């Protein structure tokens, strides 16, 4: 049990649309071990994003239990969840990942600079190091809006790592990229996973992406079908 980073027990999520109720997650049980790179698969509309949002503390489940590093997260306030996200979790999304009016460096530094209130030289140094890791140190002063799609995703990956998160969630990080860029991004994630022992949970439609991971989790009919 000590090897479990994130533990989800009987997570249920129901969306209500006026009279209409849709139960998307019907009792998800999942434990994510330290240092693994896991893929989350399932048909479109099966609830991958919903599950990632719940596990990533962006959305509250209708019911269920959620523990990160053996701390229960269910009763935390919004502000506390926000602090948890900032300090322990990283996010890479498919679209809208970066702030277009800020440089690559500033985007990477943002989650560290905003809570402390200062963009210190240490934070900048660390951001530059991460940009170097994703192969973009030569683009550090480009505005995010001036980067290509693949470059943006790599900057987003660098940003997700700025606060040394235990766990990084990536919701179809390659969904918007061509094959070469997608491959580059996946290699990068794998590389970071192996060198830094960072845990990843990556939702994807792409079987080749999933094949690159340690484990594959499938959602079928609102439940985990097999690990």
């Amino acid at each position, binding site marked *: 049990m000590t090897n479990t980073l994130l533990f989800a027990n009987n997570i249920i999520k129901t969306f209500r649309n006026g009279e209409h109720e849709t139960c998307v997650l019907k009792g998800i049980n999942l434990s994510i071990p330290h240092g693994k790179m896991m893929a989350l698969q399932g048909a479109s509309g099966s609830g991958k*994003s919903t599950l990632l*949002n719940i596990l*990533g503390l*962006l*959305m509250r489940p209708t019911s269920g239990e959620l523990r990160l590093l053996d701390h229960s997260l269910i009763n935390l306030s*919004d*502000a506390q969840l*926000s*602090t*948890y*996200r*900032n*300090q322990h*979790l*990283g*996010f890479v*999304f498919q*679209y*809208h*990942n*970066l*702030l*277009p*009016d*800020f440089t690559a460096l500033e985007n990477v530094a*943002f*989650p560290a*600079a*905003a*809570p*402390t*209130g*200062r*963009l210190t030289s240490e934070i900048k140094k660390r951001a530059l190091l991460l940009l170097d890791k994703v192969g973009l140190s030569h683009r550090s002063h480009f505005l995010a809006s001036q980067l290509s799609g693949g470059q943006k995703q790599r900057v987003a990956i660098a*940003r*997700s790592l700025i606060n040394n998160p235990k766990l990084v969630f990536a919701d179809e990080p390659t969904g918007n990229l061509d094959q070469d860029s997608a491959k580059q991004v996946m290699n990068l994630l794998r590389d970071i996973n192996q060198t830094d022992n960072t845990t990843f949970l990556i939702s994807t439609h792409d079987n080749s992406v999933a094949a690159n991971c340690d484990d594959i989790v499938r959602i079928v009919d609102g439940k985990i079908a097999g690990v």
Partner: protein
Amino acid sequence: MPFSLIVAWRYITANSLQTLLLVLGVSLSVVVFVFITALINGLSIFLTQETTSKIAHIELEPANKIASVLTNDNRFVAQPVSTLQRKQIRNWQQVIDIAQSTPGVSVISPIVDGNAFLVRGEATQPIAIQGVEPSKVDAITNISRYIIKGTAELTTGGLIIGADLADELGLLVGTPVLLKSERGPERLLPITGIFRVNLASLDKRVGFLSINVARPLFELPDGITSLGLKVDNPADAPAIAMVLQNSTQLKSTPWQEKNKSLQDATDAQGRTGNFIQGFALLAIVISIASALLLSTYRRRAEIGIMRATGISRQFVATVFILQGVFIGALGAFLGAAAGYQLCVQLASITKADGSAMLPIAPSEGSYMLVIILTIVGSALAAVLPARSASSVDPVEAIQQ
């Protein structure tokens, strides 16, 4: 520098054209505020100056009631005057000493005044005579400045009258005229000067005499009827009048009491000004609130990303408040500078006679006030957008 400041500044400079227009809009409102403030204050100063330059700021007269006799050795007390007796100030030299040592009093002029008739041939005109010390003929009203014929010299024992009165009686400088006092005595006096102050009450009804000539005419060998005072700042007149009333027991009337309509007029102008000022500030608040609100919608996805990465609501809200403050401050300083320039330009436009076209006072634009109000108003205007921004739901914003 705080990171929120960097972010706010980046946001308002990212769309520089929109920001420029917004700042220009704010500064235009500030210009309106400054202009109307400088105009209304200028008008009030002009009217007050016009009035106070021609009249006594404080008048000291014998009290109507019998003054109580105070037995305080250290303090001078006006002698009680019975209402049956002639109203006069006998110990006026002492009153002058007190007035002179009262802070704020600049000029003191003892006056013997009374009503009389000017008679020339068949024609008779009433006249209010002011008997003043010849050296103080200009103390209360700067008569010398308004002399159109002759001089303001009273030592020779002549009479100075207003131009309207002179016209009615066909009097010229040098013409002798008979002055009949209300108390009986009469005397033939030469006209030494004619003035036009452009105040009907003065030009038509008032004449100046040496106090020594006036004394026998009004049968006041020692006493005087009143003292006219000027003070350094006319606005202080009521306070100084109170002090004098207490220290002399004389009836002490500040000029404001006799010119209530002027006060009413300037008050009414002030209220009109407040309306316009209020609307100018409202325009600032509305334009900033709407522009920032639009920006929160445009930046929803970005705000969602910030919130997803665990950046607090407070940080997001602060960024939007600071944007409001930046825009407000830029508009305020730009508008204040432009408003000052405008007022200076307008104040320098003169009419044919050399007087200012607009009585605008560029130094009275309440610049600090408008800058503070604009910045505070802008910060308040940003509250609604800041709330809207900080309550963006990251999941919704990112999935769009």
